[in-house]
């Protein structure tokens, strides 16, 4: 066989291979959206009849709506806390070479490498021993442990592109450090901060294992409620709430990709 025809066969196989993988990756997401419009009681794919029945039941359910409020509250809390900690910490590490700023990055990365079950159990024991009883605060803390390293490393790459001479010029002109940060540094890194906050919010919104350990009778996030409902039965209601969760992620990814671009985002996560 000539080299050219062999290469075109290889090309076709290569392309077929990754489009097949692409299809398999997107399949569960498709299942979620399609089955959310199912009419029947027990989840099947593809559904035999379609309706908005389960969306109606979702908006009529106090339990689910209160979970949405809990998820949003915790997500905003974790996003604000992780963004503040991650941005200030990253700024410090950029500008200083002390022992603390050298040991910190590996420590903040560690929670991402441990099984979430282990972090959940560790925090459950801890908050019980020191008497922290607010499930909201406990889950915010758990999610911040996960979101902070993401914010931190996104900001590391954003600050690395910032021209620090601009800041030094501001300082030489007699600006206080806080003013210089606000007027000179922040406008240049604003999009990085926004993306960090969006990613932190989405990570918190989607996480459920740590939230499962730290939930209370009154405070349950949407993924936790979805998970516990799966233990009794597989109804299209799970698809309705999942569709909302996936939609939130799609919006977040598109916003982040529009501000920077998809490739930059892929390298940060």
């Amino acid at each position, binding site marked *: 066989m000539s080299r050219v025809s062999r290469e075109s066969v290889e090309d076709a196989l290569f392309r077929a291979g990754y489009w097949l993988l692409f299809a398999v990756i997107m399949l569960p997401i498709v299942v979620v959206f399609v089955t959310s419009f199912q009419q029947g009681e027990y989840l099947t794919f593809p559904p035999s009849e379609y309706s908005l029945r389960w969306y109606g039941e979702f908006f009529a359910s106090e339990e689910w709506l209160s979970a949405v409020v809990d998820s949003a509250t915790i997500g905003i809390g974790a996003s604000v806390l992780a963004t503040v900690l991650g941005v200030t910490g990253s700024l410090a590490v950029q500008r200083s070479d002390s022992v603390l700023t050298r040991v910190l990055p590996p420590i903040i990365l560690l929670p991402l*490498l441990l099984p979430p079950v282990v972090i959940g159990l560790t925090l459950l024991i801890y908050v019980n021993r020191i008497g922290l009883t607010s499930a909201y605060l406990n889950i915010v803390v758990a999610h911040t442990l996960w979101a902070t390293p993401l914010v931190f490393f996104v900001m590391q790459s954003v600050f690395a592109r910032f021209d620090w001479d601009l800041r030094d010029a501001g300082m030489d002109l007699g600006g206080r450090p806080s003013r210089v940060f606000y007027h000179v540094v922040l406008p240049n890194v604003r999009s990085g901060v926004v993306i960090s906050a969006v990613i932190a919010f989405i990570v918190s919104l989607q996480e459920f294992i740590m939230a499962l350990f730290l939930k209370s009778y009154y405070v349950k996030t949407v993924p936790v409620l979805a998970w516990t409902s799966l233990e009794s039965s597989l109804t299209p209601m799970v698809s309705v709430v999942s569709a909302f969760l996936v939609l939130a992620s799609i919006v977040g990814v598109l916003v982040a990709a529009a501000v920077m671009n998809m490739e930059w985002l892929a390298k940060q996560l």
Partner: protein
Amino acid sequence: MATESMFAWLGRRIKSQDTGSVMLVAPLAAFELLFFVVPFLILVRMSLNESAQAGPYESGLTLDAYRSVLDSGLYHDLVFFSFKLGVIATTIAVLLALFYSYAAYRATGFRKSLLLFSIILPLLTTLVVKTYAWRPLLAPNGVLNDVLMGIGLTSSPIQFAPGMFGTVVGQVYIVFPYAVLAIYSVLSTMDWDTVEAARDLGASRPRSFLEVVVPEALPGIAVATVVSFAWSVGAYAAPSQLGSGQQTTFAMEIENLMLTAFDWPAGAAFSLLMLGGMLVVSLAIMRLFTGSIGGVQDV
């Protein structure tokens, strides 16, 4: 004299820019100390307490919890299965990720964005979705069986899930995006000209991939392997949604010990033993990779 120079030193420190950095890093350092480092010390302390009939534990100083975990035949099986799932899921996920990240690296324009989007979206989607959505696809009356019977490959339905097949599919699906991004971030810095050069010298495409691309990507493959392995050994969502009950992992038993059986010393001891085992295996994997990177450079 000595105090004077100390004050002078302090004065110099305060004037230098470093002080600002210390104040900036203080909140993050305090948070990590208070909610990560100290909780792990408390976890170690908890593992030395005694199990109690009423309540989650009784204060004490004993190695009983470790002994009960190490002596339990059931736990040996759980640990063996967790590591087995870790090895299988990691192998499949890293091989597929190597292929997919190479495809994303070679693609351009909209196609590249689409491939990367298909990685970032599942990454930022809840584990609940990533596991339960496979159930209607892999069930005995599910889509995969319909297709296989439709094209005549099988005559009767196969139970892909609940079972080992479903558990592996679910777990690979969970760690795959992380593995792709780890490899992609390394590949994206690779100069395509080196691959072209190898091909110009007569190397076939598969050969240039194995001998030029894979060695370049090795640091990314190492990270992908360690991350996939750590998460697959600690798998919880995939085996509970897609397993049959025979696919019980250590993480599922931890959840049971902490939230149902209320035996916190055993849960703490079991976690610490597993973390130790995972650390040893992860270091061994890293060593294996750095060894082979060194070997490649020698050639």
